[in-house]
């Protein structure tokens, strides 16, 4: 699944600019750094540009989880309307943070995260991405400090206004008796929203069951191992051909138990986690849907506010001509804002449509590959199981024959 993302996207989507180098990114080598409470895991992020003309050298940086979070937040802010690839979750339980499995799961998820960004026609050209991938340690540290420090004021004026307008909107709504936030009534969009919601339910269910499968398969492996041990002891007690038969049974149980545990691990990494990632992707879609709703409300509000201001202007012309000039300026400003807000909303709508299409394509491919891998892995496991048990049969035949011998007096 993930490997598909490494190659440049086939045509069929809004074309990334042709000169854009395609990126090959990987996240590897988790290393525990720091002491005690402040310890954390760092990851090696390696980037190669695979452009024919400009084969740059491999760029390697060290990043930690919070750095990825930063990148994610930047992208969410800047690219409204785009489904930003999701991050793996923070860990709830402290001591689980450093378990080998958790680290590996997280590493894979971060790897997928960057690969998805790198293969996205818009996101791949993000400055923030470039910084993330290439900034040396000191530069990176400075950048982070600067950006985190000024986070309250880094929003541009329109955003600032937007914040203000949100408050205003709420007040207006309350005053005018509108309790419900204004929503689009586009029936097509409604369908999309509904689709996303139901899909999330289904995928969550599949993820839940696949997680249970991993767990149960592990338990089965464990049970087989215990069974093998007990049976071997019993065989030692018995001795003779029966003892050997039990020994064989125990031996194969051991072998299979190991296979099962390994396969359970694979199932987790290649089946359960990818499905989980898709659940997260859907959540990121829902974020965009929320953004869209917000943008809709904003442009609606600003448009109303503009209309109001226009009306007031007309009134003022009659009543207070001295205020007219000022008011005219305000009206013009309002119009600009309203237009900007509407443009942004329409942007989001347009982008979303593209993104949905892209999402469907990706999903079909990804999930198809996931399911196919699953089927193949299960087939392999079953075949291995059959083989392992089958090797016992000739030995069992021999044991039976020997047992028969001991019964007959030599004749």
């Amino acid at each position, binding site marked *: 699944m993930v490997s598909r993302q490494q190659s440049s996207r086939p045509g069929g989507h809004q074309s990334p600019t042709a000169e854009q180098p395609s990126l090959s990114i990987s996240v590897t080598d988790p290393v525990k750094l720091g002491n005690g409470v402040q310890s954390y895991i760092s990851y090696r992020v390696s980037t190669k540009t695979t452009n024919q003309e400009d084969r740059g050298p491999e760029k390697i940086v060290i990043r930690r989880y919070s750095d990825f979070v930063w990148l994610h937040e930047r992208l969410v802010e800047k690219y409204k309307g785009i489904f930003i690839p999701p991050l793996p979750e923070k860990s709830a339980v402290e001591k689980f943070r450093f378990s080998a499995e958790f680290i590996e799961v997280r590493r894979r998820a971060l790897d997928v995260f960057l690969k998805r960004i790198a293969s996205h026609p818009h996101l791949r050209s993000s400055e923030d991405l470039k910084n993330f991938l290439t900034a040396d340690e000191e530069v990176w540290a400075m950048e982070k400090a600067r950006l985190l420090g000024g986070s309250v004021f880094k929003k541009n004026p329109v955003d600032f206004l937007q914040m203000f307008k949100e408050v205003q909107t709420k007040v207006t709504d309350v005053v005018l008796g509108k309790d419900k936030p204004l929503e689009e009534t586009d029936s097509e969009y409604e369908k999309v929203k509904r689709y996303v919601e139901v899909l999330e339910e289904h995928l969550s269910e599949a993820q839940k069951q696949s997680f249970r499968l991993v767990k149960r398969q592990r338990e089965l492996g464990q049970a087989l191992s215990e069974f093998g041990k007990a049976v071997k002891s019993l065989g030692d007690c018995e001795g003779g051909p029966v003892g050997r038969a039990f020994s064989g049974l125990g031996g194969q149980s051991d072998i299979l138990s190991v296979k099962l545990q390994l396969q359970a691990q694979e199932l987790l990494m290649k089946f359960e986690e990818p499905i989980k990632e898709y659940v997260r992707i859907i959540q990121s879609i829902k974020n965009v849907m929320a953004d869209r709703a917000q943008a809709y409300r904003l442009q609606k509000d600003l448009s109303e506010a503009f209309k109001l201001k226009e009306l007031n202007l007309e009134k003022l012309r009659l009543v207070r001509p001295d205020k007219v000039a000022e008011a005219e300026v305000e009206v013009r400003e309002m119009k600009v804002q309203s237009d900007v807000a509407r443009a942004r909303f329409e942007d989001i709508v347009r982008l979303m449509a593209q993104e949905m299409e892209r999402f469907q394509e990706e999903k079909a491919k990804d999930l198809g590959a996931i399911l196919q891998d699953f089927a193949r892995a299960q087939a392999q496991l079953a075949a291995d199981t059959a083989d392992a048990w089958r090797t016992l049969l000739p030995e069992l035949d021999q044991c039976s024959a020997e047992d028969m011998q001991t019964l007959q*007096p030599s004749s």
Partner: protein
Amino acid sequence: MMGSEDDDSQEARLFTSTDAMESLVLDQTPMPHPFLSNSDYRIAMSGSMPLNESHHPLISSTSQKSLRDSFRKGFQDSPNSSSRQSLREADFVEPPSYADAIFTPYMGDASPEHENGREVGSSSSSSLHSFPTDTDTLVIKVTQPQKSQELGTSLVPGGRSYVTYLITTRTNIAEYKGTDFSVRRRFRDVVTLADRLADAYRGYFIPPRPDKRIVESQVMQKVEFIEQRRLALEKYLSRLAAHPVLRRSNELRLFLQFQGKLPLTPNTDMASRMLDGAVNLPRQLFGDSSAVVPPQEASQPAKGGRDLVRLFKELKQSVTNEWGGVKPAVVDEDRAFLEKKEKLQDFQRQLGDASQQAETLVKAQQEVGEVMGELGLALIKIAKFESEEAMTNTQRVHANDTKRIGTATIKASRFYREANVQSVKHLDQLHEYLGFMEALHAAYADRSNALLTVQTLMADLEANKLKVEKLNQAASKFFGVDKNRNRKIEELNEVVKVNEEARDCSQQEYDRIKERNRTELERFEKDRRKDFLNMIRGFVMTQVGYAEKISNVWTSVAEESVTGLFTSSSGSSTSN
């Protein structure tokens, strides 16, 4: 072919069929009754011949060849037909096995004749029906539980209700005088049967009877409880029917055939037993020559309520054995036996462990099967949803692929669960044999008790002899004739004689039990080895078979998906 048998069984041959395949095996001598024919029994058990080689005049009229009851279906399933052949021949050398009664059908074998229409995995009857009718069969079924009302007991007004079961038997064993018959019995009757068998067949590995399970009367009426009990009864009776000696016992025959109230004495409740004992005690203490255990009782264990004096004495003896520092006259010199006993204890431990782990394993397999089913359902739901919403062809294809894999997952889950059901049937043998250990312990306890009796009687004898000698010495010192003393000497000599007889009897009984222990153990070990080999093989074959099936399911769907992905233009992905 079967060289050793042919020489010994000339007369038996006259009565057997001429089927060339079958060897001539005489059944275990049926001499259970302790009060009769001890000598006959000893003849029968002379030497250390294994059961199948014993023969003696008494059973000539009833000699039948015995086809091995436990012709395991497993052998039929074996792909190797030549080994099947050789196994079949070897079967006839052996007496029927324990495990016949716990034979469980393998994959695909349904018990066709169960009246309730449900498969009874553990009924031996199913296996026996496939045999030609001139074999020594005894097939028992337990059906039709019915509630009955006890006629007003003295204390409780209105009766208490109880359940009776219809016990149906089909047999061609001659003693039974009849081939098909049925009776109604209640659980209490089974307890009585078990108790009487335990008394009469000391030293044998008697299959343990179903537990009494003291539950309140409400529970007793529940369908599940009754059904559980019915199954347990059928299993128990079938096991008895498979035991070469017990199947011919009078006790069993009466139980199966006698219409009306079961003519076997139940162990009465503690109170009346204690009463009996109290009545006997004065007699025994002050008494007549029944201060000595009469010979016929010497070959019986001390009964709870009735033989208090004897119990005390034997208890005293056992304490003497432990702490007396003096070795009793007869010691269980059978070193091999003691070692064996320890080994068996070890074995029991391991077996218990294995049985437990098997249970865990089976549960774990079940869970995997279940969750696979749920995963499959979730996938199918997704597929259905996606195909409804699909707008592009890619989406349609994807939905279709998902559906196929979801279906495969569900199929696999079904196979997992089926495999598990079969595995349970095989691995259950571990559990069954664990249950059998109880029978072993009882048989060995019989032996210990018999030995104790012997030791006690010997001690008694010594003591009495000493008394006689003392009196004789005293008499020889005086020249007069002391009528009292002489009478006493007379009496004591009588006592000594009785004592000697009793000791001899008890010694015989002890030897008899020892021998039974030995042969039963041999049989048990043989059967156990065979049954375990079958179990392992059956289990492994089940696993192989189902793993192959599951693998096929996955492989075929994985391959289909591949084509599906690359032919996205044609909406012609193979349907499932």
